[in-house]
């Protein structure tokens, strides 16, 4: 009897040696005369347990992790291929049935429904797990109806700005043009975020399906995925998936026998953070330097090559299929206030159990950090958390009870952004973090406006002085802190885009909540 073994091909799993584990298991099985079929699935996102190996049994998959090459022979000794009734159930690495792992079981995986379960590049697997049901429904609807469904679901852009996706699409739909575009923002530059990467590497068809639906909805026949160059694995998976979708008639002309055409191409970015900003991204796609454009005109009206363009984040687009499959209300029933649906949260930094947690909006930071995260990796108290990437505020312990909700975060002068949560233990020096925020802005500034281009450099200089004067209580410190606040004010109010305009978030929040470090 052949036993199916699942070993992730996700790049974080690979970063812990998943390929080597796969080779070792194949060799050991051969040596022992066991018949196994190794499937390279996506990662379930329990990254501290990678490499997580799953064995298929008639009662469901049984998981083991973190598996290293040196553990492989012992797992075979414990007869791990025979399921939990064997000695393997008592093996130190046994995690029991995957679906019963508390961390996973408590989640509400909608966008990530298939991630970790399927073989990412198998179209058959995708379809067998409810794939392309959304497209089927969309093909029977008018563009107006698709857009209305997306609007009614309450989906807001997951790239950071949280703008209602349906409203953006409506603007593009209303434009008359011989060519329109769907652009997927896969530049995922925020530290502490990897949900886009996970979708692209582990369930690429859901993104392809979402973009196809977007194209049909607004009348765009051409799509681009602007993918950060730091994600070579995602590039290969996406290209393989696109080719398979084309061959099966899910992309190209006359999609599934309909009158619709949608062509899709992946374009590689080139390591500029600012190119995640949508207008800079469009410049880059056009083959230019990624200089931010003035708005208006909105990209929805004059976007790529001057044509009406939908620019959406990977997660926004990858959430569309389930909305079209299960209906707007199904999605809108999750969440709180004006934050509808679920957010794929990424737990990162100094955290014991880092990984992907998809939940309805409303969970508090504290629950996330302790019930999911298990506290810090170092075992020390968590002192600060940065939510929303390098332009997000640092939150102190006193704000850990804030629910994850766009408006709740706005009210404490913080942002949810792309859902990255980075924990720091009590060894963090917040003055250093403030300095880094300016440094990052200086490195990544597109240079179009002075407050950002020059302000960030001045910010680094002032922070250097503050750090040098620390604990000396010189009159200079007071002066420099005032200077820093003025500078932040200028950047907040005088920058064209959020790179310069939001660098003050990490800086001022660090100063306000952790004054003892300055």
């Amino acid at each position, binding site marked *: 009897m052949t036993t199916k073994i699942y070993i992730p091909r996700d790049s974080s799993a*690979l970063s812990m040696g998943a390929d080597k584990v796969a080779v070792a298991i194949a060799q050991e099985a051969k040596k022992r005369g066991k018949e196994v079929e190794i499937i390279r699935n996506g990662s379930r996102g329990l990254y501290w347990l990678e490499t997580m190996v799953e064995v298929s049994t008639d009662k469901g998959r049984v998981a083991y992790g973190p598996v290293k090459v040196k553990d492989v022979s012992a797992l075979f000794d414990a007869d791990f291929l025979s399921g939990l009734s064997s000695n393997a159930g008592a093996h130190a690495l046994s995690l029991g049935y995957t679906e019963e792992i508390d961390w996973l079981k408590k989640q509400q995986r909608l966008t990530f429904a298939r991630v970790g379960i399927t073989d990412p590049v198998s179209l058959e697997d995708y379809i067998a797990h409810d794939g392309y049901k959304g497209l089927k429904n969309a093909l029977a609807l008018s563009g107006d109806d698709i857009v209305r469904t997306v609007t009614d679901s309450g989906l807001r852009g997951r790239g950071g700005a949280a703008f209602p996706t349906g409203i953006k699409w409506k603007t593009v739909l209303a434009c008359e043009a011989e060519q329109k575009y769907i652009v997927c923002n896969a530049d995922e530059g925020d530290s*502490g975020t990897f949900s886009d990467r996970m979708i692209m590497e582990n369930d690429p068809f859901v993104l392809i399906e979402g973009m196809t639906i977007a194209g049909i909805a607004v009348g765009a026949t051409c799509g681009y995925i602007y993918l950060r*160059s*730091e994600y070579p694995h995602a590039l290969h998976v996406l290209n393989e998936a696109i080719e398979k979708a084309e061959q099966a008639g899910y992309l190209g002309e006359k999609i599934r026998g309909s009158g619709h055409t949608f062509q899709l191409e992946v374009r590689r970015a080139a390591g500029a953070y600012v190119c995640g900003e949508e207008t800079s991204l469009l410049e880059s*796609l056009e083959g230019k330097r990624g200089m931010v454009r003035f708005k208006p005109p909105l990209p929805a009206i004059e976007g790529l090559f001057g044509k009406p363009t939908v620019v959406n984040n990977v997660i926004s687009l990858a959430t569309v299929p389930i909305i079209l499959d299960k209906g707007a209300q199904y999605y809108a029933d999750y969440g709180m206030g004006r934050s509808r649906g679920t957010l794929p949260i*990424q737990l990162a930094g100094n955290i014991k159990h880092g990984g992907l947690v998809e939940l309805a909006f409303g969970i508090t930071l504290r629950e996330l950090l302790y019930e999911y995260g298990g506290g810090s990796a170092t075992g020390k108290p968590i002192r600060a958390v940065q939510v929303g990437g390098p332009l997000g505020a640092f939150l102190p312990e006193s704000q850990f009870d804030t629910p994850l909700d766009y408006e709740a975060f706005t009210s404490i002068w913080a942002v949810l952004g792309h859902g990255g949560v980075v924990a720091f233990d009590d060894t963090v020096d917040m003055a250093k973090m403030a300095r*880094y925020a300016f440094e990052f802005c200086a490195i990544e500034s597109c240079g179009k406006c002075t407050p950002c281009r020059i302000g960030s450099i001045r910010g680094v200089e002032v922070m250097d002085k503050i750090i040098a004067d620390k604990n000396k209580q010189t009159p200079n410190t007071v002066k420099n802190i005032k200077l820093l606040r003025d500078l932040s004010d200028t950047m907040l109010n005088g920058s064209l885009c959020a790179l310069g305009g939001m660098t003050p978030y990490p800086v001022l929040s660090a100063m306000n909540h952790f004054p003892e470090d300055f």
Partner: protein
Amino acid sequence: MQSLQAKQELNMQKNWCEKLDLLIAEHRDMPGALLPLLHAIQDDLGYIPESSYAQIAKALSLSVAEVHGVVTFYHHFRSHKPGRHILQICRAESCQAMGAEALEAHAKKFLNVDYHQTTADQAITLEPVYCLGNCALSPAVMMDDEVYGRVSSADLDALVLEASASSVKA
């Protein structure tokens, strides 16, 4: 000996010019062709030689200054020949929270180079990077196209030694 080497270099140059023509022909008709073309060149050579700007500019109806501007705008593009392997160390916040600063200091010392420099044996070019999407397993580094997580100084040394030992380009 000298003349043989010179001859080889000349041959390489000639081959490269033909290759560049090929890459240009493959990409010139794409909408927004410049970035895909630059990627193709760097994938092939490891960098984008300044000597290719004029040819690229002509093919895409741009000025040489525009090509130069684009190459220098993007951190990913290099205008100098790198070592056989590229080691990128993540400097971003999540990795900082897990000791990236100590790791980068160690790497610079161990390799005896600063960022954007190449080791004396031409094995490794050290680059900073701002997030590899491996933040749940910080600190992270990337050697060529492979990511590594929870990297200790000892892990880094092992990676470097393994890469240095292989004479071929990854």
